[in-house]
C-alpha cells in the first residue's frame, strides 16, 4: 500500500486497540507509554504475523528445496522487497537485513577499514547517538583517519552548518549524521547534507533510527549512500533492522561477517562471495523478524506516514510548549518543527528520580544520557528526562505528563 500525501485523518484513539499491551494498568494507573524513542509497541497484526510464520512456514531460507523452506524463503525475500518499496530504494538488492541500526552502522565502519588511510577524515555531528559515534571512533583508530564534528548550536539543538564546507574540505571520506536526533528531536536537513557530502566526494550515512517509522523516508530523494534503521522502533520486532546501501558501493565493499549463506563457493584455502545483499548476511537470518517487519511496514502505510509524522510532532510541540511553564525546567531541541520527542532537565530533580516518580503514576519515560553522553557534556547536564511519542499516544496522555512533571518539580524542588 502506498503512503498517501492527503491521508484522511486516522481515528487515533481507535488505533490504540490494535496494540494489546496498551490496555494494561501500571502501579494502579492506565499505562502511558512515552518511551517510544527506545522501542515502540507492536500492533496485533505484527504479533500475529510472527505466530503465523512459526506455526505454518518456519524453515531455513535459501538452502532448502522442500515446501516449507520455499515458503520461508519467499516470505523473507518478500519482506526485503517490501522494505525497498517502503524507503523507495532502486532495487531490493540494496536492502541488507541486520539486527538493527547499530549493526548496520558497524557493518559500514568495519568494511571501510580498507578504504580509509591516514590523512583522511570522518565527519559526524555533535548530536550522535553512541551507535553513530563509537563505530567511527574505532574506524578512525584502525585507519589513522581523523574524526571531525559538525557543532550543535546549544540547547536549541540545531546543527551549526556555517563551517560545514570547511569541514568537508578536510579530506572527508564519510559523513554520518542522524536524520532525527534521539535526544534533541531535531529534524536535520538530510537531503542538503547528503548533497554537500557528495559534492566533496564523501559517502553519506544516514542514521534513520528515529525517522524511518515516523515520517516518509525516500533514499533516492535524500540522495544518501547508506541509511540504517531498526524494526523495533517502528512497530516491528526486536532483532531485525535494515541497512540500505547504494548497489555500486555494496558491490565494492568487503564482507562483514562470514560463514554460511554469504558465500558463492568455498574451498579449504579460499572462498568467493555471494552476490549483494547476501554477501552481508552470514548465517541464518532473523526470518521471523523480517516477516514481522513486513507486517509493521504494511500497518504504518495503512495509516500513512505523513499523518503519523504530523501526529507525533504535534504531541511533541504541545508537550514542549506546556512543559516550558514548569518551574525550573530546561528544555532541549528546537522550539518549532521537531520530531516526536521532548527532552528536559528539571532543577533539583535528577532524571532518574523524575522517571521513578512518573512510573508510579503509570507513565513510562526515559531518564539518563540516552546514549548521547558527549552532547550532554557539551551542554553541561549529566542526565535528562525524555518523553517520546508514537501513533497510539493521545493529547489526554500529554495532559497526564504535564501534570506529573509539575508534581515532580514540587516534590523534589
Amino acid at each position, binding site marked *: 500500500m502506498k503512503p498517501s500525501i492527503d491521508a484522511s485523518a486516522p481515528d487515533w484513539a481507535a488505533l490504540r486497540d490494535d496494540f494489546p499491551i496498551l490496555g494494561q494498568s501500571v502501579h494502579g494507573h492506565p499505562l502511558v507509554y512515552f518511551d517510544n524513542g527506545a522501542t515502540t509497541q507492536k500492533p496485533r497484526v505484527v504479533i500475529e504475523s510472527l505466530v503465523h510464520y512459526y506455526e505454518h512456514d518456519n524453515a531455513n531460507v535459501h538452502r532448502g528445496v522442500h515446501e516449507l523452506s520455499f515458503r520461508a524463503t519467499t516470505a523473507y525475500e518478500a519482506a526485503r522487497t517490501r522494505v525497498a518499496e517502503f524507503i523507495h530504494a532502486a532495487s531490493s538488492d540494496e536492502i541488507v537485513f541486520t539486527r538493527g541500526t547499530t549493526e548496520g552502522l558497524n557493518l559500514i565502519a568495519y568494511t571501510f577499514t580498507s578504504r580509509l588511510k591516514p590523512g583522511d577524515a570522518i565527519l559526524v555531528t555533535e548530536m550522535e547517538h553512541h551507535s553513530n559515534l563509537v563505530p567511527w571512533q574505532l574506524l578512525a583508530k584502525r585507519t589513522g583517519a581523523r574524526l571531525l564534528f559538525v557543532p550543535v548550536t546549544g540547547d536549541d539543538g540545531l546543527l551549526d552548518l556555517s563551517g560545514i564546507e570547511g569541514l568537508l574540505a578536510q579530506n572527508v571520506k564519510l559523513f554520518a549524521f542522524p536524520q532525527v536526533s534521539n535526544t534533541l528531536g531535531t529534524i536535520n536537513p538530510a537531503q542538503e547534507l547528503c548533497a554537500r557530502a557528495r559534492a566533496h566526494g564523501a559517502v553519506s550515512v544516514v542514521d534513520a533510527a528515529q525517522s524511518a517509522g515516523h515520517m516518509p523516508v525516500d533514499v533516492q530523494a535524500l540522495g544518501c549512500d547508506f541509511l540504517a534503521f531498526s524494526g523495533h522502533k517502528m512497530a516491528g520486532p526486536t532483532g531485525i533492522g535494515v541497512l540500505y546501501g547504494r548497489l555500486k558501493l555494496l558491490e565494492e565493499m568487503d564482507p562483514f561477517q562470514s560463514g554460511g549463506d554469504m558465500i558463492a563457493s568455498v574451498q579449504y584455502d579460499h572462498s568467493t562471495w555471494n552476490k549483494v545483499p547476501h554477501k552481508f548476511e552470514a548465517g541464518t537470518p532473523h526470518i521471523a523478524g523480517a516477516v514481522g517487519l513486513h507486517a509493521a511496514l504494511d500497518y504504518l502505510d495503512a495509516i500513512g506516514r505523513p499523518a503519523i509524522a504530523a501526529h507525533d510532532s504535534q504531541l511533541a510541540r504541545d508537550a514542549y510548549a506546556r512543559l516550558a511553564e514548569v518551574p525550573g525546567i530546561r528544555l532541549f531541541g528546537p522550539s518549532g518543527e521537531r520530531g516526536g520527542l521532548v527532552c528536559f532537565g528539571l532543577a*533539583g530533580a*535528577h532524571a*532518574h528520580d523524575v522517571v521513578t516518580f512518573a512510573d508510579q503514576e503509570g507513565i513510562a519515560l526515559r531518564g*539518563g544520557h540516552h546514549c548521547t*553522553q558527549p552532547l550532554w557534556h557539551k551542554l553541561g547536564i549529566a*542526565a535528562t528526562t525524555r518523553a517520546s511519542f508514537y501513533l497510539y499516544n493521545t493529547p489526554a496522555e500529554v495532559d497526564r505528563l504535564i501534570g506529573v512533571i509539575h508534581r515532580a518539580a514540587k516534590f*523534589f524542588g
Partner: protein
Amino acid sequence: MDLTELYQSVILENNRRPRNYRKLPEANRIASGNNPVCGDEITVFVQLDGDRIADISFQGAGCAISQASASVMTQRLKGRTLAEAETLFGRFKEIVTEGKPDDEDLDLSAFAGVHQFPARIKCATLGWHAAINAVHGDSVTASTE
C-alpha cells in the same frame, strides 16, 4: 505504592542539602564510584588516622537516592574504625536489599523503601562501595551496575 516510602524526608532533605559535600584537603585516601550506564558519579575523600576515619567527604552527581545515601554515609562513618565502617555497610545493605529497618539508626533506615525498587539499590550503595574502597586504599573505581 506511596512514593514517600522511597523518597523519605531524610532522603529528600539530604539530596537538597548534602552534608560533607566538598573536597577534603587533608584526605589521604580517595576513591571514586561510577555507574556508567546510569551516569551516577561520586568521589569519596577520607582522612584516615590509623584505623579510624577522622574525616570524610564526597562530591558527585546523580539521583536523589545516590546523593542522599552518600550524604548520610559521611555522617555515619565519621569517627568510625574500619571494622565499624564494614559493619555499618553490612547493615545498610540489609536495609536496602531486604527492607529491614534498624530502629536504632533512623537515618540509615530511611533507605528501607529502596528494596521495593530493585533497580535503585545500585544508586544507594555506590557511595558506600567507594568509601570502603577508599579506606582499604583500593584505588579501583567502584561500580554497582
